[in-house]
């Protein structure tokens, strides 16, 4: 089975996601990058599930998708609140937790 290709794909997606989380300023883009990371994981889960011919990987991936949907819901709500307060979604301006 072409496991390596799946893993490679997942790794690439993961890296893009990480890059997006760290480097993008737009909060919406950061959320989308998080989705990329999660989907990279999903690919891994399904790939290993297939490899071992068990169903756990798929089940777990379904869970992750569900949780990710919820997460995006919460995240977008936060973004809307930030936007309402600051009229911007630039993460650089959100540094209220600075020590």
């Amino acid at each position: 089975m072409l496991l390596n290709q799946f893993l490679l794909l997942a790794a690439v997606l993961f890296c893009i996601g990480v890059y997006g989380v760290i480097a993008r300023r737009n909060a919406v883009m950061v959320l989308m990058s998080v989705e990329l990371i999660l989907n990279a994981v999903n690919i891994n889960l399904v790939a290993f599930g297939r490899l071992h011919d068990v169903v756990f990987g798929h089940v777990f991936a379904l869970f992750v998708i569900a949780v990710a949907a919820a997460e995006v819901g919460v995240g977008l709500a936060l973004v809307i609140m930030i936007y309402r307060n600051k009229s911007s979604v630039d993460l650089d301006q959100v540094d209220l937790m600075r020590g």
Partner: protein
Amino acid sequence: MLSTLLGQFSVIGAAAGGPVIESSGWLMENVWIIPFIPAVAFALIIMLGKKLPKGGAEIGMASILAVFVLSVLTGTQWMSARDKSVPETGNEEAAALVVDVGDAGDVVGDVDASVDPVDDAGLEGEADGVAAPEDGLLVGTGGGTGGTETAQAADAVSGGVVSTSEFETAADADGEGGGGQFLPVVRDWTWWDVGGLDIRVGTMVDGLTVMMLVTVGLVSALVHLFSLEYVKGDSRFTHYYAFLSLFTAAMLLYVVSSSLMQMLVAWELVGLCSFVLIGHWWEDKNNTDASMKAFLTNRVGDIGLLVGVTILIVTLGTSDVLEINRLALSGGASHLVLLVASVCLMAAVASKSGQFPLHTWLPDAMAGPTPVSALIHAATMVVAGVFLIGRLYPVFWEGLSIGTSSFNLMAVMGAFTTIMAGLLAFVQRDVKKVLAYSTVSQLGYMVMALGVGAWGAGMFHLFTHAFFKACLFLGAGALSHACHHSFDMKAEMGGLRKKMPLTFWTFIFGTGALAGVPPLAGFWSKDEILAGAWAGQENGYPIIFVMGCVTAFLTAAYMTRVIYLVFFGEYRGHDTPHDPPFVMAFPLMVLSGLALFAGFFNLPNTSIFEGLPSNIQERFLHYVEPTYFEAFPLVDHSGFIPWIAVLSIFLGIAGIGLTAMYYRKCIALGVTELPDGPTSRNKLAAAGYTFLENKYYLDHLYTGIIAGGTKGVIARATNWFNSNVLDGIVNGVGKTAVKGGDWTYKNIDQGVVDGAVKGSGALSSGMGQVLRHIQTGKVQQYGALLFAGVTVLAAVFIVVV
């Protein structure tokens, strides 16, 4: 007759201890009731007394009357049982008796005819023929008979309590004029049992016990009555009556004890009550000093008692008085052990019964209220020591070789005490002090009598002395009641004969009895003692006899002095004395009556009284002297010796006459002592007077030299030890502690603890300073760091694994 006795038992058994007290035996078995009543009265008076209209005196009076009545009933039970124990006819009758006994046992059913070891020994020893006393111990006893014996467990009476009571009668098989054996009624329980040593507690009734019960009961009842008036209005009236009751309870418990350990407890209780009552008016320092002195002096003797009792219990393996007596006689303990034990017990006797050299507390004890002096320090408590000798007589008999020697510790101690105290009585101004020394002297007489083997005479003197001395003391109380609470004969009294005729006459009877004027009580008992000293045992005690005669003379003389100083001449006080009211007069009359008649309880068995019926002679000896010869030595009875009786009458009259002559001159001159008396003419007499006035310097010896000497040395040694050793330790510990504290403060506290606290503070604040720069508040930066960290961990993971 024996079967009737048992029949009565069975009736009582059926009634399960009902109040059928007129039957013989019930009270003798349940004699614990007698001390129990005043003990309960004590508790009631202490708790409720103050709320009652008479301050608790009514409870005390009721209890003591009950005690007196029960004591007399016990006495009559004993006497009837004792009479029935003596078979009056020959063998056939005795044999019939045995059958009777068997029948009775069958009829009663649960009367167990089991025979305990004592009984066994009793019977068999009897068959071997214990020699009977020579003359007339048991009046009215016929020829020899076979042994008859009844024993019954008291289960029928008491329902399952561990108890035995036995009536044993056995007549001497040899038949030399009789010699019945009659065991005391014993009922006891195990008190505690340790290491195989069974310490028992219980009651024992024999002639000596019932004699003491009646004496204590009567004197105590009269003193209770007398006190109603004498301590009326006292601030601690209730307290006074409570302790009179407790004292009575303790004394009664003491005399009914069947066990040495129980006697020890009661002895101490008696001492405690004495302490409390002497110090009754404790507001005055003299009184508290006197009570302290009495208590501490008694403690000295109590050590002797404790050691003696321990020796006896441990070596003989039993605490039972009868058993100890039996073992002492049958060689159950070596002579040395008995000697040591009896010397230790003599120390106890010396302290409680005021024998030389521990007598000094007794005159000081007169600081207590006068009825207390009458009850405790004349009639009852002080005879506890004499009673102890009487109770454990076989121990002393063997230990001090009373029967075979002609000189022993007990006789010498008694004889010396009696003369010494008699001399001291001459120089006292205080009428109670004269009586106190007279008490010491008479107690010496009793101890002397026991020391020469005249057991019966000693106990008889105890009996008669209790009455006439209580009479004299209560008389002195009446005198002081009339003469504004003073006892000073020379300053406050004189010429009271006309003013207080009733007190005068009762006092005269008491004095006559004490001085040995026939036919008053003291004459008979004193005469018996002198006869016993002269011809009592194997060798007789001639030296002791002479000392006894000297004392008889001295006693008559000093009592005459008291009579003259108090009742003759001119009244020297400043008031109008009068006879006491009835409640005080009644006890005086009863006691003076007994001083008159008590001597007839033991009329000598001699040809002079041939006309009298034989069964009124030597009644006291018949009922009181033990006849169980396994547990009582074979005392030789001297009988009546006419020339000794004449001598003692002569000595008494000489004492009275010479003193009377001297004081007649004084009265003629209107003074209390002749201005040119022997003390002012003769240097030796003056020196003797000073010597006596200072009480042989014994008090100086005790408090000044012995106590002072030891006190100083001990105090200095203690002080040195205290300031050097103890203080050194304490100071050292303190200094070390301070230094340790300093060091700990400087190093541990300031350095380590504070360092850690401050260090951790500084560390966190420093770390905060450093780390606050990382906390930018930018989420992406945090994310980047997170991923960096994860990357590093992953790298480590890969490298390591």
